[in-house]
């Protein structure tokens, strides 16, 4: 292997893939990045056995070949080389040599054959969609995923492909976020997969707001998202996601319309004096008025009062302020619609302008 490449052309893809390299590995080779030089340029692969990232870049390939090198060390070296430097990568027996200008680094390697990769993910029906749309879908739902829940199937994001839409659902059992994209999605077969938490976070990091097309593929064991210079592949969580439709309440009468930002700020203030762990706040809804109250174990108290649109029955209900704030923060509309049933039933928060997103929050007994 003998290649020459601009520092920047090497650094950017390396930084894109470094996120999945765990600091402590079960297998030594997982600390390494797989470098493959060939006719198509240079590819760099990292994996934690769950998520795999492959980045491609252009360079002068004098001689092809493949090897694995310590990923973090390589990133640190390249990052600290002078800007605009040309980096040369060669092999000297079982050592990799990185050189640029007057610098030279000799790195330990492990054979490429030891590096686990996922090439074929099986049969898929690819969907093309703008990168920014996929990012938004994940961004506005992922915060409701569970964290290390024994119900392992909640520690991820449900992606559901319908013939005409792509849905994302996340829930930790207390609240749920549902988003959907329609319009550019067209497939023959419906499909449901659960993407593990780490994959979701990594994917979110890789996607930007551009309109560039990405290719989304769901197979029975993997999800693959292909960007122009990057390929993300993740294993799936093998489990049955709960029937989320059942918990989306049908609220007719008790609907509150509030200024989203005003409500958000009131909640932020009220939560200062709520129990730090449970973040409980009490809503008292009456004709066109919402009172928010919180107490903490020191018996300090916050009271907020907001003018809202509400003509339903008077209600008193407690919530975890963080759940509401997450939902309000994911919305963009000036107003928020909040539908309630009673103090023991789920409530539904919706963007008034973008019907694609719904947030369901279970109350709290305070």
């Amino acid at each position, binding site marked *: 292997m003998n290649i020459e490449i601009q520092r920047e052309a090497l650094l950017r893809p390396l930084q894109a893939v470094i996120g999945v390299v765990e600091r402590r590995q079960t297998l030594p080779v997982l600390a390494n990045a797989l470098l493959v030089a060939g006719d198509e340029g240079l590819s760099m692969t990292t994996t934690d056995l769950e998520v795999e990232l492959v980045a491609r870049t252009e360079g002068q390939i004098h001689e092809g070949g493949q090897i694995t090198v310590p990923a973090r060390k390589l990133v640190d070296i390249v990052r600290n080389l002078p800007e605009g430097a040309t980096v040369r990568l060669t092999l000297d027996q079982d050592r990799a040599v990185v050189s640029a200008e007057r610098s030279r680094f000799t790195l330990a390697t492990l054979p490429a054959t030891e590096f686990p990769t996922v090439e074929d993910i099986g049969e898929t029906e690819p969907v093309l969609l703008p990168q920014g749309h996929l990012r938004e879908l994940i961004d506005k739902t992922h915060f409701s995923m569970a964290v290390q829940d024994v119900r392992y199937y909640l520690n991820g994001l449900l992606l559901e492909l319908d013939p005409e839409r792509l849905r994302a659902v996340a*829930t930790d*059992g*207390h609240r*749920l976020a549902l988003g959907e994209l329609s319009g550019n999605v067209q497939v023959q077969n419906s499909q449901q997969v659960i993407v593990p938490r780490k994959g979701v976070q990594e994917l979110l990091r890789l996607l930007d707001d551009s309109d560039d097309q990405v290719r989304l593929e769901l197979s029975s064991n993997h999800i693959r998202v292909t960007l122009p210079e990057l390929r993300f592949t993740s294993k799936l969580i093998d489990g049955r996601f*709960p*029937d989320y439709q*059942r*918990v989306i309440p049908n609220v007719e009468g008790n609907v509150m319309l509030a200024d989203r930002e005003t409500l958000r700020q009131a909640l932020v203030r009220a939560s200062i004096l709520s*129990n730090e*762990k*449970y973040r*409980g706040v*009490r809503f008292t809804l009456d004709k066109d008025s919402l009172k928010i109250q919180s*107490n903490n*174990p020191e*018996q300090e*108290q916050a009271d907020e009062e907001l003018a809202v649109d509400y003509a339903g029955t008077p209600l*008193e209900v407690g919530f*975890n302020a963080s759940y509401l704030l997450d939902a309000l923060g994911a919305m963009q509309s000036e107003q928020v619609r909040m539908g309630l049933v009673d*103090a*023991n039933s*789920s409530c539904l928060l919706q963007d008034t302008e973008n019907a694609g997103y719904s947030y*369901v929050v*279970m*109350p*709290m*007994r*305070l």
Partner: protein
Amino acid sequence: MTEPIRKIIHIDMDAFYAAVEQRDNPELRGLPVVVGGSPEGRGVVATCSYEARRFGIHSAMPSARAVRLCPDAVFIRPRFEVYRAVSRRIQAIFRDYTELVEPLSLDEAYLDVTETPGFRGSATLIARDIKRRIRDETGLVASAGVSYNKFLAKQASDLDKPDGLYLIRPGEGAAFVAALPVGRFHGVGKATERRMHALGIHTGADLRRWPLPDLQQVFGKRAPFYFDIARGIDRRPVQPSRERKSVGAENTFPADLHHRDAMLEELQSLAAKVESALTRRQLQGMTLTLKVKYADFQQITRSRTARKPYRTASDMLPVLDALLDETEVGQRPVRLLGVTVSGLAPVEPTDVEQLGFSW
């Protein structure tokens, strides 16, 4: 081993609410002032000035009756925020003498000054100094009772009102109690007084003749208290933060209630009040009590102890509804309803329950 002799002071503000009103409104000074509910409704007298007491008005009397006794009385709605502020000021004064302050209400407290230095070791001098500071710093007058236990200190503060200072010395307690009619004992209510009278117990001396087992047969677990106070003994310590035993709310209605629906509606708002009082203090209680006072003033209570503590109005309402069935509401008109939660315990963080989806 004999217990060391304690020095207890009971401070009782004279006509507290009325005195605050007279202090703040000079035109009320010298007039019969009644602080409490409106005489048009069913309000009661909370406090009245000494001028009003001359007409026979006293606290807890219906305001309507007070106005008949003294048509010229000035009726004033209580301003509790003001009284609370004054009370905090007075309690700060107490704490300059001892940390062992047990407030009984806004205008009353026990102080244990056994360990208080200075004043030549005299609780009477301490009490005099406290009275002076209260007068200087709040413009109000207090009476003090000084003795060697809470019961006697409290009895003593009553003896010399207003602006009183009365001492019951160790050794005088038993004789003092012996001469006292049982109806004047603090801790002996009207009902107990009637029962004692029925047994021929009229004074402390009569009470003292009863052996404990006999008292126990009649008065149950209150018997040891009566047995002790008949001898001038009261071992209760001054408890700096008196723990709240219950949280409740009640309402006397402008007109008697006849219908169950109307009562349920009232109970709803009472339960909501209790709930917010519990929430404010981060408390919950195991026992829920419904109090019903019929139009003829007969009063009953019905309680239920739950496995899961009562915390919210919605915890209470179904039970209150069931408790109503154990009363004669609907058949007998009702003038007052009350809701109380007792068996209080702090709400542990784990008691806050985030509800989950039922898939």
